[in-house]
């Protein structure tokens, strides 16, 4: 893979995910270039956690990410569009029933 063994001299792109504190999931914060995973992690620490913004960092080669459609608007998400009955607010229940 190009991310771990660069073919050209240009360093590959890494996407950075930071866990802000225990109990929260890692969240995408941005990207950076680095020649390998170890340096990507170091660079991510210096770039994205200079003020203790995280307790854990993931770096992922951008080339390893598979994304949905090239445009975020096509039929891919349509199936969920007409299924409002998946939400609790869809159902009519008597007002005086509790814990429902």
């Amino acid at each position, binding site marked *: 893979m190009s991310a*771990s*063994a*660069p073919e050209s*001299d*240009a*360093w590959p*792109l890494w996407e950075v995910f930071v866990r802000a504190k225990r109990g929260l999931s890692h969240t995408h*914060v*941005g*990207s*950076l*270039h680095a*020649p*390998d995973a170890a*340096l990507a992690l170091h660079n991510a620490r*210096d*770039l994205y956690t*200079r*003020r203790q913004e995280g307790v854990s960092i993931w770096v992922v080669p951008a080339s390893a990410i598979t*994304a949905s459609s*090239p*445009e*975020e*608007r096509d039929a891919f998400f349509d199936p969920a569009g007409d299924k409002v009955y998946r939400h609790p607010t869809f159902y009519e229940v008597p007002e005086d029933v509790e814990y429902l």
Partner: protein
Amino acid sequence: MYGNDYGPTDVAAPESHKDRLPRRDEPLNAADAAALDGYFDELIDADQRIEPRDAMPEAYRQTLIRMMAQHAHSEIIGMQPEGNWISRAPSLRRKAILMAKVQDEAGHGLYLYSAAETLGVSREELLDRLHTGRQKYSSIFNYPTVTWADVGAIGWLVDGAAIMNQVPLCRCSYGPYARAMNRACKEESFHQRQGFEILWTLARGTEAQQAMAQDAANRWWWPALMMFGPPDTGELAQQGHTAQSMAWGIKRFSNDELRQKFVDMTVPQAERIGLTLPDPDLRWNAERGHYDFGPIDWDEFWRVLKGDGPCNAQRLEHRVSAHEEGAWVREAATAYARKQAERTQAGAA
């Protein structure tokens, strides 16, 4: 730190795209309206964000690349005038603060380069455009920092102006730019406050220190006002990029509006420090509810932007030599990564 969008339109546009940039007499977005079937306009009209893989007018893409690149270059070049004083900071406290600030500027440059790359331009290309002078950086960094008080004036005035510019960019229509600005703005307010504190302290020091603070304010006030870019309201509204950028939701306020806000915010702060701002026309206008201020020397602005400022050559030379002298480090890291990967592969086979 901040670079406004006043570079020439065609600097970043590839030859094939030049004919697609809308002319000023064309309706907005005319260039690619057909290709985009209205979806881009729908998003903009609904004040939604545009994300990297959305179809967008080529002119929108090129405008953003130029603006973000210029902004990133300004952060990177902006490390030099302040870096100049790290070894001579008057105390360990001031030195630690200044190092943290200069590191932040590097960070802001990297956020912005990454965001610009989402539009399909490479990091190498962006650096090359800076190093060959094809893209500009904010003209403010072509002024020298001759005394310690200049470090204070940069934090207070230059970063103060930058914040005024960057806060509306947090709502920019291009998602990655807005997110980069969110991070930068959170970090920027310490920059302004530490600068204010430096001048506040000097203004309460010896006579020589007070004079040093006043001298810095005298030299930085007008260049700070120029940071907002040339006038772009009234008859001038159609001449620059402002009208198009505002229609696209990239800019939210005109240069003149932001400049006025900055003056209104800064004058009371100067009075509080005990500094006189170098403008005899500066006075409160009760009718307008704003401070009036004197004419800005736009000849100086264009002269400095085009390369004839006190430090243009020095700034660019220093940037290029730092890049070239760092080449062996980049090459070594690349070679090491390649060797490690080969070893891993050999072990697995």
